């Protein structure tokens, strides 16, 4: 980009000193960010990492002076290239916004005006008050450079007409058009599919870095930050705990919180058998209950009395490496163990190969009614073939991971299995007996034995009912527990998911996300279920909480000898938990087999691409190779041939587009794939690439 501005060296970039932000006024005021120092030099990318409640978004918006009403900035100082941002008066502020900073928000769609064409909104970045006079060519060039192939059409489109990936590309273009000195990106890929995320991250790397723009990249994901940033700042409960260049931070994190966070992240290639997760116990203190001493003291494995007495300052632990821990030197020296304790390992390999649940040729279509007019105009039928002849089997005591991007049909499959949304065709067999397609027609016993834990912990529990009432009802309805004994059974259940009995009286609104999900899990186990479906059940959780729940699931599976069907878009989580894995694309199983094989040595080009797109919490892993081109096609217009043919990098020719690919089994029997390419050929293609993965 040809940007006329002073060379990077003569500028400071963003500098934040002792910044605090509080919400509310007077005695009710709570600090969301406390005393944070931060520096983003021009041309570098700083990752701001933290779990929910860490204050990272508040901090990011504070430097933009874009906080919502009710927030108070200060004390502290924010300067951009030496200009005091907090002192700016309205007119200066407008100039600051117009010419010097830009934001790429988490949700692109609501961040665009729904009733203005995209082009006009882009033009406003160039000419805020006279968008009509903006240079169209410049906009088209920018759209082109952010990977939008047809700028003229896109300019005329409305935001809702674009796909999620396109929307985010447009937002990035909008931000870059203003040639900002500071670009704040607030979780720009968090709501995108992994292949789209990879493409967007690639875009950020190529188009943003090195333009001299200072980038503050906010994310909850250590993996994303690792692949993108020069420096990482870790925020915990509104306070800065560690700040370091990427490489040392991931190689040797110094703060116990950073250490715990990295230990909580599931990684592809390290299953539960190889490396159990080490979650951080307890919960992040709310803004109102911060201790006087070290903010992490309550959860720290290396805590000592002095930690509780006094807040630690930022110590320089190396070049550009600072940490807010009084014991960092001991940690470096290895004289104390700052890692959380590992949970006891249960793993044995003696799972019998009996099949608990078998799904055969499951088919499901959603139809949208067509009007007479549509038919006359021969508009495409709006039928979505959500599941196409899906065959899967769940082995006793094992976990079958089902992965796929949004729209792949994985949730539809789960709801078909439990009978909430009956399949159109195909057959389920459960414990040897056929299952009716509708839950209402299944026997009480079948319902009891086959349960499900849902995606969103916020919606999983009836909000007006206490936890105890919810669990009691499940016990009484399904397990046949006597009402008088139910109270005790509830306590036992709660204990089994590591909650104290007094949780029985609480309502879901009083619980954290992790606690709610524990209760939902307890409910599934209340009936004595033998097979449990998990539909994105840990996806909304913070990584440290997610680790605890994953460990819990693992423990419960052993204790109850249960079988899991675990659905997730997060390959790392599936890789961690699953014994077997199936990859779904547009309603078809593209590849299935034992997790160790499929995820380590994918045969199918889609599995391959998917794995390649997953960011790794390891800067040495480097960026994903060649992100997958294009977007998920409109599910209403899937061609007769291989559904992946439109994006497949290994597409053979017309055959892929025209003929449905055959089901093939690899020589070792570990990969069942749907592809026109011979398994042997695929194996040959994969071998050199996968060498770097630990087996």
């Amino acid at each position: 980009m040809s940007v006329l501005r002073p060379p990077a060296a003569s500028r400071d970039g963003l500098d934040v000193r002792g910044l605090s932000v509080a919400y509310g006024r007077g005695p009710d005021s709570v600090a969301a960010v406390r005393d944070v120092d931060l520096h983003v030099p021009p041309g570098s990318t700083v990752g701001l990492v933290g779990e929910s409640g860490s204050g990272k978004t508040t901090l990011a918006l504070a430097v933009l002076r874009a906080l919502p009403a009710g927030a108070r900035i200060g004390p502290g100082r924010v300067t951009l290239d030496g200009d005091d941002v907090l002192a700016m008066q309205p007119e200066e502020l407008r100039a600051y916004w117009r010419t010097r900073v830009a934001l790429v928000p988490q949700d692109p769609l609501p961040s665009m005006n729904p009733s203005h064409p995209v082009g006009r909104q882009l033009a406003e970045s160039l000419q805020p008050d006279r968008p009509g006079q903006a240079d169209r060519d410049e906009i088209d060039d920018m759209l082109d450079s952010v990977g939008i192939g047809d700028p003229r059409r896109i300019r005329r489109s409305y935001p809702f007409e674009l796909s999620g990936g396109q929307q985010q590309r447009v937002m990035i273009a909008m931000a870059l058009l203003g040639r900002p000195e500071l670009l704040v990106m607030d979780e720009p890929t968090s709501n995108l599919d992994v292949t789209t995320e990879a493409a967007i991250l690639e875009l950020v790397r190529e188009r943003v870095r090195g333009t001299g723009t200072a980038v503050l990249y906010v994310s909850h994901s250590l993996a994303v930050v690792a692949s993108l940033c020069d420096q990482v700042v870790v925020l915990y409960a509104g306070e800065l705990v560690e700040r370091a260049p990427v490489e040392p931070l991931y190689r040797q994190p110094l703060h116990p919180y950073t250490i715990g966070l990295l230990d909580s992240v599931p990684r592809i290639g390290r299953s539960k058998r190889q490396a159990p997760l080490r979650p951080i116990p307890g919960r992040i203190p709310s803004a109102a209950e911060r201790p006087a001493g070290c903010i992490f003291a309550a959860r720290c494995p290396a805590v000592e009395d002095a930690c509780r007495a006094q807040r630690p300052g930022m110590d320089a632990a190396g070049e550009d490496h600072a940490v807010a821990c009084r014991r960092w030197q001991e940690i470096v020296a290895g004289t104390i163990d700052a890692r959380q304790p590992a949970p006891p390992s249960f793993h044995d390999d003696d799972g019998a190969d009996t099949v608990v649940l078998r799904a055969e040729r499951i088919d499901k279509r959603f139809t949208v009614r067509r009007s007479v007019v549509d038919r006359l105009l021969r508009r495409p039928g709006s039928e979505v073939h959500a599941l196409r002849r899906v065959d899967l089997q769940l082995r006793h005591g094992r976990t079958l991971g089902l992965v796929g991007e949004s729209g792949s049909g994985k949730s539809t499959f789960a709801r078909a299995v439990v009978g909430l949304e009956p399949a159109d065709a195909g057959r389920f067999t459960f414990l040897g007996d056929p299952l009716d397609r509708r839950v209402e027609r299944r026997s009480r016993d079948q319902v009891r034995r086959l349960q499900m834990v849902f995606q969103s912990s916020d919606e999983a529990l009836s909000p007006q009912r206490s936890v105890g009432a919810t669990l009691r009802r499940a016990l009484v309805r399904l397990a046949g527990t006597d009402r008088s004994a139910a109270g005790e059974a509830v306590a036992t259940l709660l204990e089994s998911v590591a909650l104290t009995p007094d949780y029985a009286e609480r309502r879901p609104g009083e619980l954290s996300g992790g606690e709610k999900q524990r209760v939902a899990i307890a409910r599934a186990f209340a009936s004595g279920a033998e097979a449990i479906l998990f539909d994105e059940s840990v996806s909304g959780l913070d990584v440290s909480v997610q680790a605890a729940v994953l460990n819990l699931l693992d423990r419960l599976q052993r204790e109850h000898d249960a079988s899991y069907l675990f659905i997730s878009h997060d390959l790392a989580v599936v890789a961690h938990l699953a014994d077997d894995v199936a990859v779904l694309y547009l309603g078809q199983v593209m590849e299935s087999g034992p997790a160790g094989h499929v995820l380590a040595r994918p045969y199918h080009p889609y599995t391959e691409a998917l794995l390649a797109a997953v960011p790794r919490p390891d800067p040495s892993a480097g960026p994903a190779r060649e992100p997958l081109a294009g977007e998920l096609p409109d599910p209403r217009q899937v061609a007769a041939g291989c559904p992946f043919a439109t994006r497949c990098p290994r597409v053979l020719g017309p055959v892929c587009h025209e003929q449905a690919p055959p089901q093939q089994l690899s020589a070792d029997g570990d990969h069942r794939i749907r592809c026109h390419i011979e398994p042997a050929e695929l194996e040959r293609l994969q071998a050199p690439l996968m060498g770097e993965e630990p087996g």
Partner: protein
Amino acid sequence: MTSSPPRPSRLDGARRVFGELYARPTSAIGTTLVAVFLLLAALGPALVPYGPTEQLLAERSQAPNAAHLFGTDRLGRDVFSRVVAGARDILLLAGGGTFVAVVLGTWTGLFAATLGGWWEEITFRLYDALLAMPALLLALLLLGTLGPSRGSVLGVIALAYTPIVARVVRSVVLSVKTREWVAAARLQGESLAWIAGREILPSVLPALAVESALRFAYAIFLVASLGFLGVGVQPPAPDWGLMVAEARDHVYLTPWSLFFPAAAISLLVISVNLAADGLGRALRSGTR
């Protein structure tokens, strides 16, 4: 074990709503006035010096004075006593009609929307047809048919507002019925009645409370308008709307006999509106 966060007690909910109602002067005034009106309706007849239809032939057409706070009308009736007695009437009619509408609307809306399919279609098509008629138009037609009486006024309000309540209920049900806890209940083999009543209904209640309060305000308005048009409650009942209509002929002779009932209507509707506004604010802040 996860450490427990401090938890609010169950009573806090009610206290919070109450606190929110009194957090702003407007809703505080509204709530207080509604309470005063309710108190008047409950105790009114015991408080007033004269019967609502009692004619003091020697004290006709008196301007407000110590013996007659609001004066007397042309027939020698104490306007204060009539206004106070009218509070009970209008609150019972508007409140009763609203109550029936809320109960009917909630249950039909709840079950039709939960069941979906044809039931929902038929129920709400019917309701749409009813809603296509502006409330006063519907009321005039029906009261012409049923003949004016307290019962018919109540029934008309119920009929006019049932579809509106049902719509509000349906909108919440539609957003709630796909929620996961409802799916979880189905996976527990729960009956439709349980799902509708125990899983969905509680989520409907906050919106329903606000809607009920608003309906109540409109119902007061409607009862008064019907009284004014002479198709509502029959004389000599101390119906406020009717009193205004009767006093139209007397406005030059005894203006107070028009002013006080008119003021009472306005004050009551305003208070209910203010209180409903506060209630909505309170419940919204609770769900945030």
